[in-house]
């Protein structure tokens, strides 16, 4: 009898379902990585703000740095499935206080990125779509409408409506959202494929002329391509710094760590689904950015990027994202304008509902553990959805939207703080096989290399990778936390980053004190009962 023939026998028992497959975990993770907005940012910001940076190396660096972390979460999801993600991993492996602070930090920054993508919807999505349609149909009313969406007061109003829309959707039940998201994701992916195809098929030789005509038709200057910027010689440090943009996308391929199975198998689906998501998204970003770059050429991309903060140099209200640029190669083609503009809109806000949902779930978990009032985890009688948690996240998201539209916070200034949670989780992975030896040894990922648990090795590699990530997010002159002192004129983002961690610790200790007055000992929520 061969080794592979050795079976286990299960009986008919509740809950023994087939495991969720690789494709599902893959989709779940790809959903959370925003290919469209990622490439838009890579092309909008790297050519003009990082002299000598190579956008493809930048994307490769981001993927290499994100992969070990994706593996850490994949390993944890195999070892402690169905558990609520890193809140539980860190609480059980290191300390409940650290677990809560890491989770608090996650949720704070997630709610920030509920508000910011709400602004993107108008700022990058509706604006470009209507301007494209206006140019294609020579309708100045549509162009003006497009321009109006970059007015921050309009952005605030539209963003508020969008946050309100998703709050209602979640109050009606997550199933409605996931049905919607399935359709939206498909539309978004079709848009990516279409943009790649149209960019490859577009006439690069005539592009400068088409671009000039597009900008002029949109109300801009007559010869926009004359602003072309010749690329600077290759610069490895600028390339490293510029990787903040693609990192913003691929660092978040870990959402499927919340999906778990009961009979633990070697979780091929998770091990492939999370790192696979990083690789797939990177390939898609390569294809899209590559095809746009060959159509448009680096000099014009440089012109667009360099004038991001001064679009009036082009005579425009805002510089075009890649979908508008590709659409410009097909002058007067309303179908192309409509398809590219419409499909891109769905990428602009995709983080909003994902972060919204993840934040409400974290609030529920905290409430169940006694770290939030019980009302937070109460569900409505009719829809069985957590109304209070939804309202809290909606309000937090709206505050972030307001601060963003007032210029008080900027797009990526929170990532340094956010990554700290990933870092703590990677450290937890390193020590997990030693601190929770029995759980590790009984897990399907109890592999060893030269006697050392592979999970510890991956945790160590991820820790080093994330320290490099943190260095980049500190030092990048555009997005780095250190740069915010110059760009914002004070240390508010540094102070905020520290405050988030400090308030998390204070909240935990305060909740412990308050609950103790009621006879509830918070520390019991996480303490392991000795079995012997």
């Amino acid at each position, binding site marked *: 009898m061969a080794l*592979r023939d050795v079976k*286990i*026998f299960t009986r008919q028992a*509740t809950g023994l379902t087939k495991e969720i497959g690789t494709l599902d975990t893959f989709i779940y993770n790809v959903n959370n990585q925003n290919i469209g907005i990622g490439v838009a940012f890579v092309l909008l910001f790297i050519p003009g703000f990082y002299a000598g940076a190579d956008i493809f190396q930048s994307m490769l660096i981001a993927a290499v740095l994100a992969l070990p972390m994706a593996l850490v979460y994949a390993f944890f999801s195999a070892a402690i*499935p169905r558990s609520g993600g890193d809140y539980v991993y860190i609480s059980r492996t290191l300390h409940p206080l650290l677990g809560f602070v890491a989770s608090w930090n996650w949720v704070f920054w997630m709610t920030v990125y509920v508000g910011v993508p709400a602004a993107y919807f108008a700022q990058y999505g509706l604006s470009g779509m209507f301007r494209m349609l206006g140019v294609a149909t020579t309708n100045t009313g549509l162009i003006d409408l497009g321009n109006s969406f970059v007015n921050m007061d309009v952005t605030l109003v539209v963003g508020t409506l969008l946050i309100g829309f998703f709050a209602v959707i979640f109050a009606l039940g997550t199933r409605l959202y996931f049905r919607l998201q399935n359709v939206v994701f498909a539309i978004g992916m079709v848009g990516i494929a279409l943009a790649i195809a149209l960019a490859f098929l577009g006439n690069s030789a005539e592009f400068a002329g088409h671009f000039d005509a597009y900008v002029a038709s949109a109300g801009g200057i007559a010869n926009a391509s004359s602003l072309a910027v010749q690329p600077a010689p290759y610069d490895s440090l600028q390339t490293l710094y510029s990787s903040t943009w693609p990192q913003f996308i691929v660092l978040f391929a870990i959402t499927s760590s919340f999906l778990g199975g009961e*009979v*633990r198998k070697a979780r091929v689906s998770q091990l492939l689904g999370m790192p696979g998501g990083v690789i797939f998204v990177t390939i898609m970003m390569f294809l899209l950015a590559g095809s746009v770059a060959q159509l448009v050429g680096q000099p014009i991309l440089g012109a667009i990027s360099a004038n991001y903060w001064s679009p009036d140099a082009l005579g425009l209200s805002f510089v075009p994202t890649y979908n508008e640029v590709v659409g410009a190669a097909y002058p007067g083609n309303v179908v192309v304008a409509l398809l590219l503009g419409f499909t891109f809109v769905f990428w602009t806000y995709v983080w909003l509902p994902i972060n919204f949902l993840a934040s409400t779930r974290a609030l529920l978990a905290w409430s169940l553990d006694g770290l939030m009032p019980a009302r937070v985890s109460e569900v409505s009688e009719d829809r069985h959805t957590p109304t209070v948690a939804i309202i809290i996240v909606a309000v937090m998201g709206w505050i972030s939207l307001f601060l963003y539209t007032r210029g008080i916070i900027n797009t990526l200034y929170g990532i340094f703080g956010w990554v700290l949670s990933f870092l703590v989780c990677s450290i937890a992975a390193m020590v997990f096989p030693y601190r929770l030896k029995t759980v590790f040894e009984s897990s399907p990922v109890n592999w060893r290399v030269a006697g050392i648990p592979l999970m510890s090795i991956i945790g160590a590699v991820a820790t080093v990778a994330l320290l490099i990530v943190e260095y980049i997010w500190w030092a990048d002159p555009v997005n780095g936390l250190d740069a915010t002192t110059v760009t914002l004129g004070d240390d508010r983002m540094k102070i905020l980053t520290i405050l988030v961690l400090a308030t998390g610790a204070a909240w935990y200790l305060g909740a412990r004190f308050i609950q103790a007055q009621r*006879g*509830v000992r918070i520390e019991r929520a996480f303490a392991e*009962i000795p079995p012997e």
Partner: protein
Amino acid sequence: MARTSSIYFVADIHGSDVCWRKFLNAAKFYGVDTIIVGGDVTGKALVPMIERRDGRIEARVAGRVQLARTAAEVAELEARIRFNGFYPYRCDEASYEKLDADPAHRDEVFTGVMADTLRSWLRLADERLKGTGIRALVMPGNDDGWYVDDVLTESAEIINSDGRVLDLGEFQVLGFGPSNRTPWHTHRELDESDIADRLVTLEAQVDPAKPLVVATHVPPYGTGIDVAPKLRDDLSVVTEGGEPVMVPVGSTAVRDFIERTQPMLSLHGHIHESRGATRLGQTLAINPGSAYSTGALYGAIVTLKHGKVLSHQLVTG
């Protein structure tokens, strides 16, 4: 003056040796006087440890075939299997082949192993709980075969609370283990109308003057503590956007009963992924959830006084 009572409630430990051991130590650890297992004590998988002719032992653990040669390695492998809530079963190649080929024989062996394991658990309970004054209630759930009732009678310290109303002094506990229908066609499943009838019969035993705790294995329908992944006929999980679609699967009869009788507390299990607490009118309803296969014991601590719930806390022990 009314005494303050505290309950530690868990469910769905499904054969996990480490969870059972933790359960027995929970009263001392949390300082409670009553501990309850709300159904589904037996496990779901039998793991043959096949003794080869050359003396080595092979078993499939966590999706991979693992080998043990020395006595220490065998003991370690066995412990690993038990940790996940599975039952190790030592056999030679011929016995394994018979197990594989003959479903009736396999059922018989499986049942025997489950019963023997439960007996060993009860012996441990009797050792640890004797003379402590701790009240320990265990009831079978829908996944537990009918033999479990007989085995439970062998314990001096454990009380089977299924189908009974037990007077615990300060309050009474109504226990009910069966569930509504599931896609797995398990041992103790009833139609909703039968559940309703059985609960009404039990209600007749309740002392209306004394506070009531209802412990039904299946949670009340549509309360948020009864949501499970939606399944297709082949038991695969329906997903949308990569995420499992969750649907309520609790019992409507249990919900009706709780809404009508309004006990101060109702305790449930059955749906492992639906950990939470909610209110049905004046009743606090709790499902502590289960993660037995990770060795973590999910539970709920509830403090009672004057016929009211003073506090509750979900814990991961």
